[in-house]
């Protein structure tokens, strides 16, 4: 049975193909259009998925869209009418979009994909997220939590997964949304909501939670672990452009203008303090959600998805202080991942067996036969990796591109930039090489699973989230000494643990680097230039390499150097 899942029109549109319950291909539209988190209908990603399975649109059994459009339209209409007359402009904008094409989505999907209209299906937004977490997890049964910005009405759900069944027990409704709160504060601090939430998490490390009391009021605890947003401070219930109201400035002070200097140091560390306060209260609210979920679904396992599941510090807190023993976050817990979740949920409902555990490498593969101009062929990947290890050990910043494109926000070593971890200025050099100018951003550190215990205090039950780089862990002294620039101000690190069985090539590279430097550690970040999308093809990678300040590039079994 072939099911195509589609997500679109919010952010990070994507398509995913599931055959007999197993994900075969998945891709984000941005990888093809080069528009970061492109929300447009994912025509190119769909084409790729069909090509990967060597089928055409009419050969699909069903196509499923990741939300219920009419219920979402109802939510928009009600919230904008309620806000009369303040929502005049947003209402005109919303109606322009929806009456233009979104209300006729069923026909659009049938036409674009080439399937009969009777094969087009719809699933609730939060159920898509929940399915992306549960059906990709290694658990046969689990409690499932989604904490998101908004879909139809639901913003947070408590659910239970068991075998092929996914049951939603309860949900909170818009505008009571933790995801929208984070998006609003992202905009308040001069970043782009929906894009830059990870920057807030990094910024939080530099501040003190002196606005904690204000946030406690902005998002107050409600019955049974739930929460209530103080809507008087926000415009997001009816306006997608400007998310906060003047009243928020009375609580948090003046906002930061985009591009203005970040206030992170005394005497005015307001921006960092706001981020830190948000993080503290967010963790508290999500832990309360976990407690309530555990009360309803007393499992050892938690699957977590939605906009907030990308927050590494939050995931660490859930593991450390939550009632569950094991945590799973899918490769893409956000909007793109929901396309895969929708397809998995429909497949499971139609009786397909569950797939083995998740692998993020679901995107387009490189074409080994086609090298760009200037390539030096080394004959095999082993030789190329030896060269890569030597260059890294000698202090070079290198690009490394191999295998299939990853699905999700992290490149996981398949489209990465790497540097020797010993250099105290390594993080800065790595980011400078790709023109990243925000100096407070942390970079990841990759280490082999069999040596992880030497460097970090990995919590029990974190295996999958560590492999998929979704969690921060406390660094040991050995990591502080061996990779000083990877350790964050609070003594944690953004870690990716590399398993020899699941990713033998990355593991081998780390081992070789360790043989040369004494520590099998590499600083790594996604191979994307500032403001651009992750490199996709070899041509993309070579182009980005020449624009960057990287010292060299290794693509499969060949290398590229600066002329």
């Amino acid at each position, binding site marked *: 049975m072939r099911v195509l899942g589609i997500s679109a029109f919010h952010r990070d549109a994507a398509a995913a193909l599931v055959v007999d319950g197993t994900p075969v291909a998945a891709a984000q539209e941005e990888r093809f259009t080069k528009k970061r988190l492109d929300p447009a209908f994912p025509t190119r990603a769909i084409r790729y998925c069909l090509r990967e399975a060597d089928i055409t649109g009419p050969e699909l059994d069903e196509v499923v869209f990741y939300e219920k459009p009419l*219920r979402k339209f109802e939510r928009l209409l009600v919230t904008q009418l*309620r806000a009369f007359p303040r929502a005049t402009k947003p209402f005109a904008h919303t*109606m322009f979009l929806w009456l233009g094409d979104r209300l006729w989505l069923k026909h659009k999907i049938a036409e674009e994909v080439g399937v009969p209209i009777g094969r087009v299906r719809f699933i609730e937004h939060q159920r898509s997220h929940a399915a992306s977490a549960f059906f990709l997890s290694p658990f046969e049964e689990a409690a499932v939590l989604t904490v998101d910005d908004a879909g139809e009405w639901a913003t947070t759900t408590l659910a239970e997964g068991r075998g092929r069944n996914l049951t939603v027990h309860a949900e909170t409704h818009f505008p009571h949304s933790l995801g929208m709160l984070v998006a609003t504060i992202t905009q308040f601090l001069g970043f782009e909501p929906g894009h830059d939430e990870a920057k807030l998490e990094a910024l939080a490390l530099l501040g003190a939670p002196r606005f904690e009391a204000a946030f406690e009021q902005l998002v107050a605890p409600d019955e049974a672990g739930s929460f209530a947003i103080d809507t008087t401070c926000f415009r997001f219930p009816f306006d997608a452009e400007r998310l906060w109201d003047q009243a928020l400035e009375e609580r948090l002070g003046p906002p930061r203008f985009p591009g203005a200097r970040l206030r992170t140091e005394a005497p005015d560390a307001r921006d960092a303090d706001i981020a830190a306060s948000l993080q503290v209260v967010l963790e508290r609210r999500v832990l309360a959600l976990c407690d309530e979920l555990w009360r309803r679904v007393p499992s050892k396992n938690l699957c977590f998805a939605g906009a907030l599941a990308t927050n590494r510090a939050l995931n660490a807190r859930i593991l450390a202080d939550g009632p569950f023993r094991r945590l799973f976050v899918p490769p893409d817990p956000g909007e793109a991942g929901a396309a895969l979740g929708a397809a998995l949920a429909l497949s499971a409902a139609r009786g397909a067996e569950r797939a083995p555990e998740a692998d993020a490498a679901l995107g387009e593969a490189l074409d080994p036969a086609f090298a760009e101009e200037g390539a030096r062929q080394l004959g095999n990947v082993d030789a190329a990796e030896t060269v890569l290890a030597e260059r890294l050990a000698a202090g070079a910043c290198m690009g490394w591109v191999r295998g299939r494109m990853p699905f999700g926000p992290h490149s996981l070593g398949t489209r990465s930039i790497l540097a020797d971890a010993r250099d105290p200025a390594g993080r800065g050099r790595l980011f400078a090489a790709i023109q990243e100018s925000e100096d407070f951003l942390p970079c990841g550190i990759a280490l082999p699973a069999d040596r992880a215990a030497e460097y970090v205090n990995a919590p029990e039950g974190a295996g999958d989230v560590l492999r998929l780089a979704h969690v921060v862990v406390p660094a040991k002294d050995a990591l502080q000494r061996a990779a000083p620039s990877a350790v964050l101000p609070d003594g944690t690190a953004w870690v990716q643990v590399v398993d020899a069985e699941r990713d033998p090539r990355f593991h081998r590279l780390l081992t070789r680097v360790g043989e040369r430097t004494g520590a099998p550690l590499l600083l790594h970040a996604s191979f994307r230039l500032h403001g651009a999308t992750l490199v996709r093809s070899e041509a993309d990678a070579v182009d980005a390499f020449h624009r960057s300040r990287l010292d060299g590039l290794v693509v499969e079994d060949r290398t590229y150097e600066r002329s």
Partner: protein
Amino acid sequence: MNTGAWFARRRNRAVWSDPVRRFRTLQSFAETEEDGGKDLAAAARRISDPDLRLHIERHARDEIRHASLFRNRAAAVRDEAGAALSSSADGGKAYDLSRGRRGELDAHGFYSAGLADEMGEVAYVCMLHVAELCAAELFTMHYDLTAHDPGTRAVFEEILKDEKYHVSYTGKFLDKWRGEGREREVREGLKAARGSRFIGAWQRLGARSAASFSRAVMRIFYWTLLVPFGLGARRLKLRAGWQPPAEPAGDDPFDSQY
């Protein structure tokens, strides 16, 4: 002065006289120039004529330098504007002079990686030539309109010198090709470059007019037909706390769009 130019000057004057828009415009000019520089550097690697490649490489360096001039000036404007930039009211001022609106082609952007391959060298240089002529004209207007801001004016003055060089070297190559009997190729390339800019502008105008009209109609609806519904909707309480999950309509829960 034609009507279009008159409107452009009015709009530009409004932007340059406002510190917030000035800051944002300079910042986005910096981004546009940097992108242009990177694309030119990528294009230069694809150019077979060594002499032309050298010129395009220098052009790329110029664009990157312009980016840093704009960025530095933006930082200075930010510091001069001080508190004005942190007021929430300013955050709502959405437009600047450099970028196309969201979802449109970049208003200044004319380069794209790989374009030199797709178009061929003659058509590519034709496109550069036309774009640089337009940019020189635009920057001259910005220079005229920034007399009250000597720092910004000095940036445009510096950049205009380079623009002259860019127009001149692209023009010389076009003359050279004309002399080599490729007159027709050059003529068609220039025509296509001017045509694509005109068509792009026409499409933008069409799309914006249609969108503006539709939005105006929707606003009228909102203030007339929908007022009773708005008053009714206000009575609805959007409750916090746990709610039961919605039951989809119909036999197959995946069938319904609601």
